[in-house]
């Protein structure tokens, strides 16, 4: 099995990728504006829900239950989807999924395909596989169009072009759509993309989508979106192929009641998505007449084996954790080097792709807890980050200097007397770096601190020394 998560295997470590990105003034400005706007909208529509916490608990329970009995629900979905005329395929990894999908389009002689926004196809790098087979994929979600035409990578699970602003979008459209004139007014940009896309909707007979939910007891698939471009891809073509990660399953149609309240409010700050498409197999004379579903594992079953971290698979990709994350706010999604960025990406990518490829990601968080607070399915992301760090330590990955420092601190923290002695020693060692009560230019890893901030020198007297002196005086 070869597990691939976008281009994460070859991505630079988070701190070095982030170093460049935090210096990009345009990016920082775009990120502040975009995340502030989405957060504001989300907070407003969440606050009006009296049963928000109960909904979160329900969603968490449904997802935990489904993941525990996934074999049962997957087979149930397969049977019900097939009964309704769908073809179900199973893919162990990204390559297998891509091969199945390419094969279906090739068998039918298609050389172009229109795509609904899906992060899963970025995970498997489907577009590259399609192109290699001579099939041109056309993204149709506005943000994905911006990413595709700009030869860019998605930076957000819901808003893949979050890092771009209007004038950048205008520039990309002008160049790639061969337009002679275009203003940066949102309605003009939307009109340009509309005429660009409509031609494709009407011409191309093959569609591809991801899914938000797959419903086991009916064999239905659900996609929610804001633009209606997804609806075009799901209804106009004759052939439709859908790929979904196996964790997208929910047991019954009724469960949508919970998720369709949580997802739009968390993702885009909408009370309801403008377009909720739910379809079951094929309907003669209406919509695609051939429908395939590819169920993708790509090591999701491996993640399931870790009881502490398996709740990672509960994620419904709303992006609320990204929008609330103070780290993502500074770097954007590209620093995470994967299709999945922000806090959820920091726990999902290293688990899917094994820790070897993304060792810096579990540390790309200050553990502030904002992600856990907004997560609509209550994934305890900080807890899982710590769990993954512990696995890295167990496997001996952190640098020697860190491990030695931690060991030395652990020895000092074994008892009060040792701590007092360590304090005296540290006070002696700090003099080469001490200037007017501040420590400057500290060596090694600590240099990262003093590069940007002052650090007070250790005071002459520790608290415990003051206390002992005071007690002595009183005795």
């Amino acid at each position, binding site marked *: 099995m070869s597990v691939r998560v976008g281009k994460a295997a070859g991505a630079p470590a988070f701190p070095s990728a982030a170093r460049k990105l935090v210096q990009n003034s345009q990016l920082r400005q775009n990120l502040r504006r975009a995340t502030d706007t989405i957060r504001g909208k989300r907070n407003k529509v969440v606050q009006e829900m009296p049963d928000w916490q109960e909904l979160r608990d329900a969603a968490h329970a449904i997802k935990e239950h489904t993941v525990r009995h996934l074999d049962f629900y997957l087979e149930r979905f397969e049977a019900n989807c097939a009964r309704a005329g769908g073809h179900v395929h199973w893919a162990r990894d990204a390559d297998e999924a891509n091969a199945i999908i390419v094969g279906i389009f090739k068998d039918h002689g298609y050389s172009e395909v229109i795509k609904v926004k899906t992060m899963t196809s970025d995970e498997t790098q489907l577009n590259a596989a399609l192109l290699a087979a001579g099939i041109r994929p056309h993204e149709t979600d506005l943000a994905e169009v911006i990413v595709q035409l700009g030869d860019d990578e998605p930076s957000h699970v819901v808003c893949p072009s979050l890092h771009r602003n209007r004038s950048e979008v205008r520039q990309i459209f002008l160049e790639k759509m061969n337009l002679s004139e275009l203003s940066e007014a949102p309605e003009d940009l939307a009109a340009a993309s509309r005429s660009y896309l409509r031609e494709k909707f009407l011409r191309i007979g093959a569609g591809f989508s991801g899914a938000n939910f797959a419903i086991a007891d009916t064999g239905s698939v659900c996609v929610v979106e804001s633009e209606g471009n997804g609806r075009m891809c799901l209804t106009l073509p004759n052939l439709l192929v859908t790929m979904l990660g196996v964790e997208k399953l929910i047991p019954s149609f009724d469960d949508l009641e919970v998720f369709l309240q949580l997802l739009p409010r968390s993702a885009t700050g909408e009370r309801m998505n403008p377009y909720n498409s739910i379809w079951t197999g094929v309907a003669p004379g209406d919509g695609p007449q051939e429908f395939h579903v590819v169920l993708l594992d790509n090591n999701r079953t491996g993640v399931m084996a870790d009881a502490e971290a398996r709740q990672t698979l509960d994620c419904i990709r709303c992006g609320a954790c990204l929008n609330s994350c103070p780290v993502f706010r500074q770097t954007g999604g590209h620093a995470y080097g994967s299709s999945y960025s922000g806090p959820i990406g920091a726990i999902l990518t290293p688990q899917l792709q094994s820790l070897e490829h993304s060792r810096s990601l579990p540390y790309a968080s200050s553990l502030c807890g904002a992600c856990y*607070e907004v997560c609509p399915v209550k994934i305890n992301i900080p807890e899982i980050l710590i769990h993954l760090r512990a696995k890295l330590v167990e496997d001996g990955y952190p640098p020697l200097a860190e491990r030695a420092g931690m060991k030395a601190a652990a020895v000092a923290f074994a008892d009060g007397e040792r701590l007092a002695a360590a304090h005296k020693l540290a006070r002696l060692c700090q003099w080469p770096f001490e200037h007017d009560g501040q420590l400057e230019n500290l060596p090694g890893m600590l240099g990262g601190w003093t590069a940007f901030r002052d650090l007070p020198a250790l005071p002459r007297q520790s608290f415990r020394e003051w206390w002992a002196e005071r007690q002595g005086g009183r005795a």
Partner: protein
Amino acid sequence: MRISLFVTCYNDLLFPETGKAVVRVLERLGHEVDFPSRQTCCGQMHYNTGYHHDAFPMMLHFLEVFRDAETICAPSASCVAMMRDHYPKMADESGDAALRRAVDALLPRVFEFTELLTDKLEVTDVGAFFPHSVTLHSSCHSIRSLNIGDKPWRLLQAVRGIRLVELPSRDQCCGFGGTFAIKNPDVSAAMVSEKIRYVLDTQAEICAGVDNSCLMHIGGALSRQRTGVRCMHIAEILDSTDRGGAA
């Protein structure tokens, strides 16, 4: 009331003035303070960085040192959060049921400093006088883990002479995050630069908080840029009276 002070390793070594202020405030309110000298660290740095085998004996040590304490006060929200969020799990993972019982018996007696004042001692006016303009940073663990709400704010409101200014985006992380600031220095610096911009926007002289770790970070950036604005632990403000004190 007899209150045992868990000053925390951080305050012990780097911010002794905070510990002294806690002692003086509690004594001023008529309580008896003791300092078990064998105390060290709650284990937070090791635990959060993934060194769980090293954090475990620190928890055992804490439980032993404070086993008989009536009430424990820690002037650090993140250390209290470490205990409440992780000690039960650490005890469970050891498979030692007696250890879990010891954790459950001790945790209800552990209070963060402002929690102790408002919840246990039921006091908001501690008789402080502090004629300065102050803004308040809401540290992540204090609000998201301890659910401390407006307790520090109410304590500051009762201080005479103070001029309180609300901090914009006060609940946004300052970017300290323990070893995060060392492992991701550029992102951490970007985060603190945003935080100090908010602080400077308030025009306050002092940025207060309940965690000296965050305050060292914010204060370090304020100092590096020679902003003339400084950070102070809330205990030091509450310790100030019209007859002098930390100011």
